[in-house]
């Protein structure tokens, strides 16, 4: 490392000492990890992830943090052989802080990122990760992370396989049922149409808004079913009052499945708000 590099690191360290309170970096153990043990031989997609392990009771945030907080960010250094995709966020925990509601991750999370490999050869990635970690108090943290994969076959790394499998299951799929969302008075009503046998198995649902002010995060969501639909009534937030015309977010659905609960989430892409 050159003098300049040292200076930059020293500066980073200085700013993190002055802006973030002291050396509490171990509140979050963070690393970039890869599902593949090596770069693939041919073009294709491999998955990497920002792995965060947190001290008990501390949390980092989902893509929409809720009433307060800020989502984790990754700023990548460009690497010519690969195209770096967006973060695929797994289902967050609902974290209540007094009367406020946050969406984030306690204990552990893996933010998944697809890499489109355009040219064979080793992969050397560098990113600056920034996150806010909170309990009652909040500490902003920042870490420079590296991930180096040698040229190879792109085989799955057995050490990381189960972690990727676990968190990939928590990433939402596309919502594939016919869905409508209504804005009625101060209520938002989401209606999802399903087949009878699908409907029967649904035990509970929860809607996660993707934008601030869509719904009141701390209010109860009323869930009901009729013969064709599941219906979720939520209290509208300030953005609706201000004329927001669409709904965006995610719905988590818990179904009974062979005596256990199957937990899946579905992305709600910009649904127009109907009157």
């Amino acid at each position, binding site marked *: 490392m050159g003098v300049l590099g040292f200076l930059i690191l020293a500066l980073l360290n200085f*700013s993190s000492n002055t*802006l*973030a*309170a002291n050396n509490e970096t171990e509140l979050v153990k963070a690393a970039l990890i890869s599902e593949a043990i090596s770069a693939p031989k041919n073009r294709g997609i491999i998955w990497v992830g920002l792995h965060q392990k947190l001290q008990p009771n501390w949390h980092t945030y989902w893509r929409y943090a809720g*009433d*307060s*907080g*800020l989502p984790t960010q990754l700023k990548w250094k460009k690497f010519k052989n690969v195209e770096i995709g967006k973060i695929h966020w797994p289902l967050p925990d609902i974290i209540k*802080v*007094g*009367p*406020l509601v*946050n969406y984030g991750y306690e204990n552990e999370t893996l933010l998944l990122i697809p890499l489109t490999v355009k040219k064979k050869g080793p992969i050397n990635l560098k990113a600056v990760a*920034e996150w*806010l970690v*909170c309990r*009652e*108090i*909040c*500490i*902003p943290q*920042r870490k420079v992370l590296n991930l180096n994969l040698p040229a190879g076959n792109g085989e799955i790394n057995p050490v990381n396989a189960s972690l990727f499998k676990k968190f990939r299951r928590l990433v939402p799929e596309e919502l594939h049922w016919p869905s409508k969302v209504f804005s009625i008075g101060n209520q938002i009503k989401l209606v999802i149409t399903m087949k009878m046998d699908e409907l029967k198995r649904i035990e509970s649902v929860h809607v996660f808004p993707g934008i*601030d*002010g869509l719904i*009141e*995060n*701390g*209010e109860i969501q009323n869930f009901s079913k009729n013969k064709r639909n599941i219906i979720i009534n939520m*209290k509208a*937030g*300030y*953005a609706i*009052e*201000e004329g927001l015309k669409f709904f965006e977010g995610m719905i988590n659905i818990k179904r009974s499945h062979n005596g256990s609960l199957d937990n899946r989430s579905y992305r709600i892409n910009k649904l127009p708000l109907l009157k």
Partner: protein
Amino acid sequence: MRFKYNLLFLVCFVTNFFFISSVNASPSLGTPAPQFKGINSNGNGVSLSDFQGKIVILEWTNHDCPYVRRQYMTGNMQMVQVKAKVMGVVWITIISSAPGTQGHVNRHQANKLTASRKALPSHVVMDPSGVIGKLYGARTTPHMYILDTKGTLVYKGAIDDKPTSWGKIDAGTKNYVLDALSELMAGNRITHAATQPYGCSVKYGS
């Protein structure tokens, strides 16, 4: 009959209780801002109705929150306060941190903070019970509100469009509060009247 009245009272009490304990009752833009009374850092009573005919800015704060610290360490919040003062705006800083939580200070400490940060609030209102904070749906520090000369809520949200606690305020930063103030003074519609507030959660006790 008497029972009925008691019941009515109970219902009112209970709904009022829920209203107060919920932070979600964020007042709507274009409606009269909720009235409140509080005690300022000099021990004097402050009532919103004292400032009729003036533009009022409410600033929720917690001096130990990294987002607030950045605003004050860079001098950004003070810069907005100076400009507001020139425009004759009343600036009320409100501290809703419950006792024992981050940012909770006594009146003496509040005045020391104002002096050491060279801040220019007209009043620092002590709200350890969180009643005023919950009345306004304040959820982050900072969280900013602007009331026009008629006491109508015309802005609620963030101080600016760069939700970070790192580094200096770069030139491209859009200061929502300053923009709203100049639009308000010019008699124009406020372009960004409701924005997403960012920062630490307000440390309500419950």
